[in-house]
Structures are given as C-alpha cells and as structure tokens.
C-alpha cells in the first residue's frame, strides 16, 4: 500500500516550492484582523476556521478579501515565521500576491502561489491532505494513501 500522487495543473503566480497539509477555506480569506501574526492562528470569527493555524500549511482559499492593510498583516505573519508553505487560490488578487512578493524581496522567503487549477481543489482534497506545490511550473501534487 503506497502513496497515490495526483498532479493538477494550474498557473504559477509566484515561484518556489512548498509542501504541507492542506487547510481549506471555502470562503474568501482575510488576513487583516484575520490571522494573528505572532502565532499564525486564524482569529476571524466569521471564517469558519477560528483557532486553526496556517503555519506551514498549504493554504487553500478562493481569493483574498478585506482591507488594503491585509498585505501587511500577511507579510508580518510570514516575517514571524508563521506563514503557510504554499497558497492555492481560485483566482489570486493583489493583497495576497503583494505580501508574497514582498516576503521574497524583503526576507528572501519564497512561498509558491498557484491559481487557476484545472478543477475545484476544495473538492479534490480534504483537511490535512498532503500537497506539494510548485510555483515555477504551476503544478500541484496531491499525495494520498493508495
């Protein structure tokens, strides 16, 4: 009984390689007052993911929402070492993309960001599914027990 690897193609928005357990939000995700930078804990009471932690996870959500300060909140979370290992969006927007690009420019931390996957990722995986994300090729690999 080995691992099954399923490859899903998408668009690589930011470069890098990351892997980890999936944490899925079916709703648009908010970093401003949404994630505590000092711990990576989700603090948005309307997220449905209260008290979950994004650190090291493959964070999956349709797109970012909320205040234009969200990029700073996300950047600070990454600076504190509590960022996700990768981000998968349906269609990324500038709050999320800015934070990830700034993290690379400022701290040399690369977090792959992939969107426009063939298929609905939130239907293909469940919480804690192990996923490998390649931001250079835009491919993700879903690793599950065969």
């Amino acid at each position, binding site marked *: 009984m080995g691992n099954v690897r399923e490859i899903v193609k998408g668009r690589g928005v930011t470069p890098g390689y990351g892997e980890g357990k999936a944490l899925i939000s079916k709703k648009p995700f908010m970093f*401003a007052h949404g994630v505590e930078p000092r711990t990576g804990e989700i603090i948005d009471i309307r997220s449905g993911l209260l008290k979950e932690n994004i650190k090291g996870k493959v964070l999956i959500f349709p797109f970012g929402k909320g205040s234009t*300060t969200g990029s700073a909140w996300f950047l*600070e979370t990454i*600076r504190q070492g509590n960022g996700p290992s990768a981000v998968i969006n349906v269609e990324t927007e500038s709050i999320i993309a800015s934070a990830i690009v700034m993290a690379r420019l400022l701290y040399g931390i690369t977090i792959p960001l992939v969107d426009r996957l063939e298929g609905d990722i939130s239907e293909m995986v469940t919480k804690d599914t192990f996923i490998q994300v390649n931001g250079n090729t835009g491919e993700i690999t879903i690793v599950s027990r065969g």
Partner: protein
Amino acid sequence: MILTDEEKAYLEGSHGEANRLAMELLVSLGESFGAERLIPIASAHILGHYGSLHQAGIDFLEKLAEGGGECRVPTTVDPSSVDFERWKQFKIPEEYVEKQKRLQIAVEKLGVIPTWSCTPYLSINVPRYGQNIAWAESSAIAYANSVIGARTNRTPFGLDICAAITGKIPEFGLYIEENRRGSLLFDVKIDDFSDLDYHTLGAIIGSRSGADIPVIKGIPANITNDQLKCFGAGAGSAGSVALYHALGITPEARLKDPFGGKKPEEVFAIGRKDLQKMEDQISTADPNARVHMVTLGCPLLSTEELKAIFRKMQKRKVRKDMYFWIYLTKETYDIGKALGLIDPLEKAGIWFSTQTCATISPVKVWGFSHVMTNSAKCALVVPSEHDVKITYRDTDGCIITATEPG
C-alpha cells in the same frame, strides 16, 4: 508585460535599490494580473499606521527610504496609529509610539506629504476626473473613483508606496474602462435621508455588493461631500466596494451609461425598513448597557461636521466617567481653533485628536467594553480591533449619551 527602456533600467538597478525593488513588485504583480504595461499615475495615497503595518511594514518602508526612494508624484498618507502630539493623554504605550515614529521618519524621508488623513481628496490630494492614481484606504478609494471619477484599484500596502516612488502602476482592473461598469442596481426609496442613513446605506450596499460595482438610484442630488464620504466608508468596509455609480450625481453615471449597455445582473430595492434592519445589525451591544466611550470622526471630521457638533453642544458638558473622543484632520482642528469652536468644546470635556482615529489607534489599553459611534465603518471595524461591543447611533444620540446639560 512590455516595459519601456526606462522601466527596464529601473529593474536592472540603474536608478538605485529602492526603484529596483519597487519595479520588481510592480512587474511581478502586473504579470499576475495580466497587465500589458505600466502606466503613469498622477498621485498616490499610502498606508502608514503601525497597528496594521507591524514590524514588516517598518522593514519595507525603511528599506525603500534607505535605498534612495523618493515619491515621484504627490503622495499623501493615511492616519497614524497614534496622535503624535497627544499620545500620552491617550495612554498609548511608549514602545508603540516609537514604532509609529519610525514609520513617520521613513515616510517623510520618502517625500510623502505628512497629512496623516483618510480624506486627502477633500483638501491636499485632489484628483481630477479620469486621472490614474494609486491609492490605498478603502474609503478614499471609493470617493476618488466614484465621486471624482479618477481611477484606482484597491491598492494594497506595499504596492502603494512602490507606485508612489516609481510614478507607475500596472494597468489592470479599474484603470481599464470596461472594468468600471456596474453590474448591480440598488433602487433606493427613502424620504428624508439623515447623515446616519448614508453610513447605513453604505453598509447595506457594501455587504450586498462584495467587490462588484453597484449602481444606485434614488440618492438625492443635494447630498453633500461629507455624506458621500461617509457612504463610501460604509460601502468600503462592509464590502469591498471600490467604485459605485450614483445616478444623477457621480460623473461616470452622468456622462455615460453606468451599466455600459448591459442589464443589471441583480436589482435590489432598499427602503426605510432595510436601513432600520442594518442599524440593528450593526449594533452589537445590549442597548441598556452602560456606554464607556463615545467617538465621532470616522472618516475624520471636516469643518462643516465640526460646526454641526458645536451647534448641538450648546450648553452641554461631558458626563462624569464618560469619554467623548472626536477625531479630526489637523486642518479641521486648526480651522476650528481659529473659528473659536475648539476651546469651548474642550472646556466641555471633549477630547480632540488629530491625524489618527479610534478605529486604528490602540484604544484597547483603556479597556472599554462598550463604545458608541455614529460611523458605520467605525462600528464595523472597531470590534475586531479592540474586542468591544458597539452601539451605532446618530450624532444627536451620541451627544445625548456622552453629555448632559451644564
């Protein structure tokens, strides 16, 4: 993306480290959003408050300042997390103030006009119709796009200052004509709008619109700039409205078909009972619970709004054990002082504060559990920031709660 020779030179570092970094961010984002090119901007408005920027924001702004970054277009800055003059009175911890001061130094080194105001479009940074600008701050974005007809996306922190120092922004989203058309119609049937009603209507339309572009029918032509300011603040914080069209009022609605020839995807009717329902939703406190603090001035007050408060405060003083905090731009405070409005109100017990606001300064140090405000944006944002319950009430109700005859 197709870059000009100058833009390529920036990317290669021939114009210094700050410009290289800034251009990298612009180009990375431009590529992500399908921009074909960068376009010049006429002005910028950036975020600079420690409470949201944190150490990472300080790191980024300092890196740009130290790398020789200088704003190439007139650039203003949103409110600070602290009142630079009165922070001790407001009990802001000194370490927190030191962090904000680092941002102040970086921002001034970058050549930003130190306005520390969320209403730049009313005074120091006034865009023109059709101009491309790069602004942050949802309420300012809503005003500049909708009331003036300038063009900006909801520019996130980081992209805002990089656009300011290069004078460029990737051409995507609301910089493109076809993307500025409305998709939702709000048919508003309300007699006799009050100031509070405009905040509430903004919250309703914001929450139903999300990030779509609403077209609004039924707003009276005599709406003031202050009321439009409050409406946009509500819409930008309850939802992500960056642009709205108000029939008969906003320029793009007056000069062309705001739906661009298409039919609205959805039509919503809004009446007095919808306003009442939203008012009730916005308030989270037990209406009988004691109010600890009353705050006005989100967005920051204009002179007209200050005069209205002065008139309502005749022969009244702040109640014992009550805090009544009113936030203004520095300009409004100075004009108010010259007009003789400030001293009597301070004598009556009001605490004025400039260049900051209750929404973003760390008022949680005071431990208030119940705050009253006349601003939908403040009511919606403060609870997540400060762990408080809110009562949302009009200006008269706020003044009656905060003060007594005397």
